[in-house]
């Protein structure tokens, strides 16, 4: 065992690295600083979204505060009399009917869209053959693409006259009309998120259930949907957010009567939502009047609603993602 060098190639001309492999201190400094500066600029630009959120909250709160300090929150949240245009002290700003109006249409819309959306998601993820899914998904995407004002237009011009004529309602623009349209609008969101989470439930779990003799319905209802429930809830919450935040449809289709329906289940009566109130009244309100600030208080309430819901959906989506990573 000799320890002769491995390499016996004659040295020849040595390999020369023509460009220096080490940085000079100057280059090092410049490189470091420019890298830092570049990063900083990119970071600042990225912070535009943060800035936007802060500005939105800040300015809406700023404009809402004069109302809250003057009229307080209690009346705003408990009284149903909304007479903002009355003279001076007679003006009343009771937002309860607006809040219930929003809840009415949102909940009624969810009653339609959640079962329908969930069934459709199950169909797309578990039942439909590839080809059918390939056709159905873009069609459902079209539903999401149609502008809300077009839905509102349909509600006023087509659905409302139809309801008046065939269902015998006194007015075609009512809570039911708005709810139906909102449910159609919330469907794509619910379907796509629910379908994602259903597909994410592994094949193996399904196969395990089938191998125990369960039918597809039993597998889906007892195994797959429970396993995907975080994602499904997130989808429902997102759909709900879309319904709460929707303006044009409810403005055009809900009839805009600031009242709580009586009897409470009668959806054929007109109601008015928070969004529609802002949309309908802010244009004619003098800047910096009480009414103006009251509308911003409504806006703030909306913002808080959606912010909380957003956090809820984030929570469920995060849980859904965590689960998926664990099962993988």
């Amino acid at each position, binding site marked *: 065992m000799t320890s002769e060098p491995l390499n016996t190639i004659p040295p020849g001309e040595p*390999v020369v690295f023509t460009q220096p492999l080490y*940085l000079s201190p100057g280059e090092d400094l410049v490189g470091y600083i420019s890298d830092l500066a570049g990063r900083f600029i990119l970071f600042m630009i990225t912070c535009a979204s943060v800035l936007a959120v802060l500005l939105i909250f800040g300015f809406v709160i700023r404009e809402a505060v004069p109302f809250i300090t003057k009229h307080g929150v209690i009346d705003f949240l408990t009284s149903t009399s909304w007479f903002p245009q009355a003279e001076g002290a007679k003006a009343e700003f009771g937002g309860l009917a607006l809040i219930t109006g929003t809840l009415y249409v949102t909940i009624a819309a969810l009653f339609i869209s959640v079962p329908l959306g969930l069934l459709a998601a199950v169909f797309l993820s578990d039942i439909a053959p590839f080809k059918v899914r390939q056709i159905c998904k873009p069609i459902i995407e079209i539903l999401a693409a149609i502008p809300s004002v077009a839905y509102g237009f349909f509600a006023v011009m087509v659905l409302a006259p139809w309801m008046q004529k065939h269902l015998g309602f006194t007015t075609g623009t009512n809570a039911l009309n708005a709810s139906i349209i909102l449910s159609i609008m919330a469907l794509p969101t619910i379907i796509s998120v629910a379908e994602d989470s259903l597909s994410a439930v592994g094949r193996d779990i399904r196969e395990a259930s089938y191998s125990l003799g369960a039918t597809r319905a039993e597998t889906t209802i007892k195994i797959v949907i429970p396993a995907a429930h975080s994602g499904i809830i997130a989808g429902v919450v997102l759909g709900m957010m879309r319904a709460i935040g929707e303006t044009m449809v409810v403005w055009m289709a809900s009839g805009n009567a600031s009242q709580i329906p009586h009897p409470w289940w009668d959806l054929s009566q007109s109601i008015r939502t928070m969004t529609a109130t802002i949309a309908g009244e802010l244009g004619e309100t003098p800047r910096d009047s009480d009414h103006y600030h009251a509308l911003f208080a409504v806006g703030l309430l909306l913002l808080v609603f959606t912010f909380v819901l957003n956090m809820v959906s984030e929570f469920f989506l995060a849980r859904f993602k965590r689960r998926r990573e664990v099962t993988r």
Partner: protein
Amino acid sequence: MISLSIPSLHNALDEKSIGNMDVDENVAIEQFSVENENAIVRARNFSLFYGHTAGVKDITLDIYSRAVTAIIGPSGCGKSTFLRSINRINDLIPNTHAEGTLEVSGHDVYDKRINLVNLRQQVGMVFQKHNPFAKSIYDNIAYGPRLTGMRKKSELNDLVEECLRGAALWDEVKEDLNRSALALSGGQQQRLCIARALATRPKILLMDEPCSALDPLATARIEGLIEQLKSKYTIIIVTHNMQQAARVSEYTAFFCLGELIEYNRTKKIFTSPQKKQTDDYISGRFG
């Protein structure tokens, strides 16, 4: 002692006759870390960690200039990790850190002062999956030179031709250099990637399983190309394919589980491996 399970390996060894460099076949070497003028890459107890797990551990090895060095071993043993440390492409992966030293031409590549641009331009790399940019053939090759500020059309034209010839692709593509690189066949794309790597005039060429995605014919062409290139460049090639290692390389390093098991002249490794693991691996008993 000689236990070659793969018949063609004999042929490879016979035909290529690694001995064309007057190597005494009977010299056995235990120590890999012999100080040598010609060692262009020098690793000393080099380890690279992904987070807390080591991709390679404690590698000590010299790689010699103007020769082809093959790195073989079962998958997941750290071949790519070691190769990608030489030009620090591993930096892309978050949470990596290195221990020990890894020198290129006497410069520690994990030194803070290293000029990454110059290092990477002079240590070219060819990847497992041919990955030309979605640009024209010409622009693919001109990408590197343009980075260093080469703008003159005539210089670029010359360089592109030289590199394409160097990668044995010129005759096939000279008609239309403005064609999209993605329109080429897999083998052509890989040769284009080699040409692209040559365009920055590297001293070392790292190849990470350059033929694993290619058919045998294309593989043969690439191997022929490596044969041509080795007089000018130092080539380090990772390969899965032991016949390939035997065919193209002068030196072979055998990695297993992140460690260097054996490093020797290729002929020695394939004819008389010193370690049982190496023997098992090349005779196909595991891997």
